[in-house]
């Protein structure tokens, strides 16, 4: 993919690496090295650690990154935010609101209560964690120390993404685990699978925006520019993407003579490209809605839901349910590009594309 790729064969070629180290063994002094790995934990962990080091060039960078960031107390602050701001008020509201009927609280209600604030705030937190990842080191000069070690630039970007993603994902998961523990204690009926998948999707949302921010920080030479790009993309998605998606469909119908169902499909498809909307509809699927209901539910208002259900998704309406009707799959099923797997893929593209652009530009830049 890039002419920088040559360095990578070293990791795939252990014999070669051993041979290189071989000359050093003869004249090394053989001093006692016990105690230097005291912080590596148990022997199983130490074994995994060694294996990862041998296998992946980025692993040590990611570990250093995580360790460095943990020390900044950012991780603890974020954990406090995710538990204190995201989880506790929702839990309190639910528990107080249900009073004696607390056992009727469902996983669905817990996620619904917090979905807006989560899809709004998780990206912001992730951008804050990631935007200075590469540019910050470039500005301070520590990148010179890092790149004087045998890492290629892709290792640095990958290590940054993995390390900082962990910094975002761990507090999110901690928040969910604590919430689950509280809900289980008060006797709520939890769907374990729904809770687990919902938590993982939220962590993925954080990872996607961390990737976007790290990609921006690799692509630009200053942290300021990286922040402008990452925040700009996010603000555009939140404020303008929805209306862009619906008007794009309308324009197709107006000027290209597209059929109504085609134009609705285009609108829905564009909506799904927004990772925060993709996250929302995937959580709905995870919590037990049918795929078609989750997709149709992305639009506001019963009439539009009905239109999307029938015309974009080829579904049928049946009476009953929260909005007076339920959207059910038609004979042809849901088109593959609206399936859960496709939506997950669109989210992952948001992780991959900015990183590829970032790596490309960083890989060829003069530092």
């Amino acid at each position, binding site marked *: 993919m890039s*002419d920088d790729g*040559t*360095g990578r064969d*070293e990791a795939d070629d252990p014999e070669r*690496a051993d041979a*290189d*180290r071989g000359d*050093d063994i003869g*004249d*090394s*002094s053989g*001093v*006692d*090295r016990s105690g*230097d790995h005291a912080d590596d934990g148990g022997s199983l962990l130490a074994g995994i650690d060694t294996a990862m*080091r041998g296998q992946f060039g980025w692993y*040590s960078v990611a570990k*250093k990154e995580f*360790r*460095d960031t943990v*020390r*900044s107390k950012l991780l603890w602050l974020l954990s406090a935010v995710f538990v204190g701001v995201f989880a506790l008020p929702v839990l309190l509201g639910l528990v107080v609101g249900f009073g004696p009927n607390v056992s009727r609280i469902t996983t669905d209600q817990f996620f619904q209560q917090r979905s807006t604030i989560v899809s709004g705030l998780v990206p912001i937190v992730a951008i804050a964690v990631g935007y200075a990842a590469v540019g910050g080191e470039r500005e*301070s*000069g*520590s990148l*010179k*120390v890092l*790149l*004087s*070690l*045998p*890492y*290629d630039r892709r290792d640095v970007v990958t290590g940054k993404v993995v390390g900082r993603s962990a910094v975002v994902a761990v507090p999110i998961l901690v928040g969910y685990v604590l919430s689950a523990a509280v809900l289980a204690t008060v006797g709520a009926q939890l769907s374990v699978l729904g809770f687990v998948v919902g938590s993982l999707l939220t962590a993925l949302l954080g990872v996607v925006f961390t990737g976007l921010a790290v990609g921006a920080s690799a692509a630009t030479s200053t942290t300021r520019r990286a922040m402008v790009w990452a925040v700009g993309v996010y603000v555009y998605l939140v404020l303008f993407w929805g209306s862009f998606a619906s008007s794009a469909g309308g324009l197709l119908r107006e000027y290209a003579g597209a059929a109504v169902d085609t134009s609705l499909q285009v609108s829905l498809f564009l909506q799904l490209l927004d990772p925060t909307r993709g996250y929302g509809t995937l959580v709905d699927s995870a919590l037990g809605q049918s795929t078609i209901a989750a997709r149709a539910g992305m639009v506001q208002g019963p009439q539009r839901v009905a239109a999307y259900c029938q015309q974009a998704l080829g579904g049928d309406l049946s009476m009953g349910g929260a909005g007076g009707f339920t959207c059910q799959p038609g004979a042809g099923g849901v088109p593959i590009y609206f399936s859960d797997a496709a939506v997950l893929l669109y989210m992952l593209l948001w992780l991959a594309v900015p990183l590829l652009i970032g790596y490309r530009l960083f890989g*060829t830049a*003069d*530092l």
Partner: protein
Amino acid sequence: MPAIELDGVTKRFGDVTALRGVDMTVEEGEIFGFLGPNGAGKTTTIDVLLDFVRPTSGSAEVLGYDAHADSQRIRERTGVLPEGYDIYERLTGRQHLNFVRESKGADDDVDALLARVGLDLEDADRKAGGYSKGMKQRLVLAMALVGEPDLLILDEPSTGLDPNGARRMREIVREERDRGATVFFSSHILGQVESVCDRVAILQDGEVVAVDSVEGLREAADAETVLTVRLAAPVDGAAEAAAGVDGVTEATADGATLTVRCASDAKMDVLSAIEDAGAEVEDFDTEEASLDELFAAYTEGER
């Protein structure tokens, strides 16, 4: 196989030309000084060796590998003390060294490395954000030594070091050379390069103006010693007498003060010639050539 081979390396940043066709060969096992004023292009040259920047034209090989295509392989066997670096403020000195060991697959004794560069064990367990410039410099030097590299690239290594630290650093440079490593050492201070290097290249305005042994450099420096002599009273013919001595390039009189440019071993002959001319020497002062004058000596000599 040379440790470093630069062939016509040119680097332009926009309109600015940082390097103009640099040719240079550093042999294996030598301490090679890279001398030049600030802004001459020393750091850009080192950046090319480490693939931090890519040359506009020309080729660079390090340890037999292409500096760009095989950079990672080069850096496995190279220890670097870069210029304008920073450390990770929240990690301790020891964690820095462990990270380098892990990155290079080396198993050096961290305590021994710390002792070698003169960093206290107590300081090593503190966060490096609180280190002084000299301590940071010692830490990064220790990091460069991890894994017994075949090549050490040290960019202005004495920056921030006290005289003791600078002496320690020079000892380490010699020890590393004696172990078999090649040391590439940049500086803008003549004295540092002179006291430790086997050979020297002089870079000015992005061009290598001279490559010489340290003896040759010393001779060139000596040729440019400036002797200032104050006489008790002005004496006609004193300057002419000084100018007649072997090894004197120029002698001028300004009242009772004579300024004589000469080789340093001609100093005593000059003084006695002045006294023979009937002048009474009240005081004299010698000044070694500055780097700029040295460059002038080389550039004038070559062209």
